[in-house]
């Protein structure tokens, strides 16, 4: 027996050690953006394979998945079927291009459906296929051989933060793969094409976005491809790459060369500030790829959250994908009057809910589905217009040929929690009906008829909800919830409080008891803080869900984190510099002036403890789940993310223990039954068995993989890639790497 008496230092170390585990939780707010809308997005660019040789492809061509093309318009199918039908997926890209051309006849009527590309060898849309399933028919990489994956290339974009951009990078980029190329944007909107097999750069185009344009974070989640059905093969800009930028421009360049498309807007550029009003850099920015439907590019924008009621409009606009001319505008405050733009001297209705995330389109129906956010003043609603109340936090279906609303489905009534719809919706055929899957930040998953907006799965109603003291006449005492499936966990109790030691856990319990908390949808308060759970990070955020249409499985990763908020009376806010974010409580804190409303807002995202920054709630902070698409039942559910990057005093523990970290970014599924996902704050990229949830392979990324991965094929070899660029809000470093892996080449 050691009889030595323990020195104080030993005791202290021991106590500190007790807390190690919690450190991992230190980056609780995965989702992003503290500033609400601005925040949530993150993805990384794609890598290209280095090696040449096609590996033996064990892809079974017969794989049913390949013919998939879920819910793509039939019309498109005829024109482009050939390629993916059954053969080698490698041919897909060329086929796609060829098919696109083949369809010219069909598209004369500007309003008719145009061909859509299929996913396989290519990853032609941000969400994989036009339906945004994030499901690939490729199956060369299997659960059996995934452990032998080897890195084939790393490409560095060279876009790293300089000057005032330091600490603001959250690129969140997901490339497209088309033909032989990977096409992407960087954090500051540099358009880049690299060889998909080697990672060698083909071209780049820098639109020169200034640092002042960075809103919440420097983010470009992706780009959009469009082939002009009227153009001849080989014409410049016959196939064009389009992005919308942080400084609110729509830019089109030739996909093959990167040369600006002269016929598009002004020398390849359309100014989205047009008719928005006063230019305040950073207040109006685009971070999501536009979606194209029937030749119309549809884009919203991110309007900085929590600022003023007199913020830029949330107008969603459609532009001719060939000429860049305004096709229509959907201004929910004046839809008829402003459909072709506001009258001379006026601007689009200011302060209206916006769409910062990515839409999805049904080419056949000609509808585009807009996941709408909230008004700029997120946490106070009494002075919102009826139109705002009607459309905020709704999925809105527009007829993309006219810009007129077809239907809308609201997920929160009178949202004062910043529960923006952050996920791209996914199109599926559900029990015989063309449907759309809508995940929300509250974790609810709805399945709607995509023609009518009618729910196909049961929607329940919460009733008798508390209305609070701030604006009891405004707060809704009922709210819809999905009775089919929700990612949301039960309400918090005092026993869910956490910490490193009994002391910080006790302090969290005291905070819990002092706060206003009546469970889900507790209304904002000012006399005391209130607990918002789930927090605005989701649930499901911009990473969206992935759907294995063959197996009938939805794979959803999610955050499980509360926010600790307080409304700050105007007098207190006045003492603060307007438009600056005063230090909030804890490291995840933030505040917004909400100018024009009676209160400012202070948000402690992830509810991190005073001083220590340790989360006040128990792990896991994020998970991933497989859901039966037919029944809504959970097939498996597990925490996502290990404790390796966390430890006491910020020292990485390197412990491979799964804790469940905050995560941001989605998954890609393959026909062979694999789920590839980064997202978590452990900076791992991993492959999970879709049948069991077991992790089969993982690799350490140089910076956080807060981006949706993709998979594609070149010359018979399947690649998986993700961009490892980190995320400022997720505290996962910063990088510029585009990385790809494939099976070893067997000679």
């Amino acid at each position, binding site marked *: *027996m*050691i*009889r*030595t*008496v*323990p*020195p*104080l230092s*030993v*005791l202290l170390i*021991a*106590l500190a*050690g*007790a*807390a190690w*585990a*919690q450190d991992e939780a230190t980056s609780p707010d995965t989702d992003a953006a503290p500033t609400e809308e601005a925040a949530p997005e993150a993805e990384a660019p794609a890598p290209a394979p280095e090696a040449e040789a096609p590996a033996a492809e064990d892809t079974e061509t017969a794989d049913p998945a390949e013919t998939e093309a879920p819910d793509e318009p039939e019309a498109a199918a005829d024109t482009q079927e050939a390629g993916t039908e059954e053969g080698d997926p490698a041919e897909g890209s060329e086929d796609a291009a060829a098919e696109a051309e083949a369809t010219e006849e069909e598209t004369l009527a500007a309003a008719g459906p145009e061909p859509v590309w299929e996913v396989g060898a290519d990853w032609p849309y941000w969400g994989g296929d036009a339906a945004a399933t994030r499901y690939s028919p490729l199956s060369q990489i299997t659960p059996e051989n995934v452990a032998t994956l080897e890195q084939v290339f790393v490409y560095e974009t060279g876009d790293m933060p300089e000057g005032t951009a330091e600490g603001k990078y959250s690129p969140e980029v997901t490339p497209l793969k088309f033909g032989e190329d990977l096409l992407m944007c960087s954090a500051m909107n540099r358009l880049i094409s690299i060889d998909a097999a080697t990672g060698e750069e083909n071209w780049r185009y820098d639109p020169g976005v200034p640092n002042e344009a960075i809103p919440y974070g420097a983010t470009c989640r992706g780009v959009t491809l469009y082939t002009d059905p009227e153009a001849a093969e080989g014409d410049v800009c016959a196939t064009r790459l389009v992005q919308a930028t942080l400084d609110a421009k729509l830019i089109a360049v030739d996909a093959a060369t990167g040369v600006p498309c002269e016929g598009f807007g002004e020398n390849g550029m359309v100014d989205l500030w047009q008719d928005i009003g006063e230019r305040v850099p950073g207040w109006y920015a685009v971070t999501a790829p536009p979606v194209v439907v029937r030749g119309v590019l549809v884009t919203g924008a991110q309007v900085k959250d929590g600022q003023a009621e007199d913020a830029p409009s949330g107008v969603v606009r459609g532009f001719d994908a060939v000429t860049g001319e305004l096709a229509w505008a959907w201004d929910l405050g004046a839809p008829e009057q402003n459909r072709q733009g506001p009258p001379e001297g006026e601007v689009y209705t200011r302060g209206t809910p916006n769409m910062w995330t990515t839409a999805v389109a049904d080419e056949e129906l000609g509808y585009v589905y807009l996941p709408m956010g909230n008004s700029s003043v997120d946490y106070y609603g009494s002075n919102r217009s009826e139109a705002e109340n009607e459309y905020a936090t709704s999925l809105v279906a527009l007829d993309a040929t006219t810009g007129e609303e077809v239907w809308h489905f609201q997920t929160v009534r009178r949202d004062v929690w910043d529960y923006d719809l952050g996920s791209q919706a996914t199109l599926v055929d559900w029990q015989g009906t063309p449907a759309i899957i809508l995940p929300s930040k509250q974790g609810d998953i709805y399945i709607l008829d995509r023609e009518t907006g009618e729910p196909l799965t049961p929607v329940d109603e919460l009733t008798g909800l508390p209305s609070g003291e701030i604006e009891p006449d405004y707060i809704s005492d009922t709210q819809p919830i999905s009775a089919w499936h929700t990612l949301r966990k039960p309400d918090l109790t*005092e*026993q*869910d409080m*956490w*910490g*490193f*030691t*009994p*002391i*910080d*856990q*006790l*302090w969290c*319990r*005291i905070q*819990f*008891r*002092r706060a206003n908390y009546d469970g889900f949808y507790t209304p904002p308060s000012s006399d005391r803080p209130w607990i918002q759970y789930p927090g605005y990070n989701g649930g499901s955020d911009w990473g969206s869900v992935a759907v294995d249409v063959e197996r009938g499985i939805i794979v959803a990763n999610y955050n499980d984190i509360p926010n600790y908020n307080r409304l700050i009376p105007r007098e207190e806010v006045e003492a603060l510099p307007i438009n600056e974010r005063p230090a909030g409580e804890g490291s995840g804190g933030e505040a917004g002036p909400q100018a024009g409303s009676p209160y400012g807002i202070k948000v402690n995202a992830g509810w991190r403890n005073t001083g220590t920054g340790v989360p006040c709630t*128990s*792990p*896991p902070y994020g998970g991933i789940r497989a859901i039966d698409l037919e029944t809504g039942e959970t097939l498996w559910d597990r925490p996502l993310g290990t404790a390796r990057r966390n430890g006491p005093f910020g020292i990485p523990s390197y412990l491979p223990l799964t*804790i469940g970290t905050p995560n941001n970014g989605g998954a890609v599924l393959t026909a062979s039954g694999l789920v590839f996902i980064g997202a978590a704050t452990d900076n791992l990229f991993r492959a999970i068995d879709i049948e069991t949830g077991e992790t089969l392979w993982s690799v350490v990324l140089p910076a956080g993989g807060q981006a949706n991965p993709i998979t594609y094929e070149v010359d018979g070899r399947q690649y998986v890639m993700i961009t490892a660029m980190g995320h400022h809000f997720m505290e996962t470093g910063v990088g510029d790497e585009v990385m790809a892996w494939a099976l070893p080449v067997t000679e």
Partner: protein
Amino acid sequence: MTTSDSFAPHRSRPHGRNWAVMVLGWVCILFGLVIGAGGIWLLLLGGSWYYALAGIGLVATGVLLNAHSMAAVWVYLVVWLGTLAWAWWEVGADWWAQVPRLVAPTLILVLVLLCIPALLRRR
């Protein structure tokens, strides 16, 4: 391990105090006061009784350690067993949730147990 020479002087002074036991005693008192005061606040807010009780137990342990009484060990053993039972009752086998509940109290248990030779010597 057997007694190290460095402690020999203590043996020759029947009323001598072991500084490390004293340090642990004061640490227990300090933590006990913090946890006890916070625990009473929590109680008044309608929360758990555990912290107030644990705070009292820690203060008692600390006072007894400072008196170099073996009773410190028994008192703390009761506190620790009570903590174990309470922690299991609250969150069961959720090991991440057990970290704040059990790790630090168990470290203190180890330190208190390490004091036994010194406490016995004093008699």
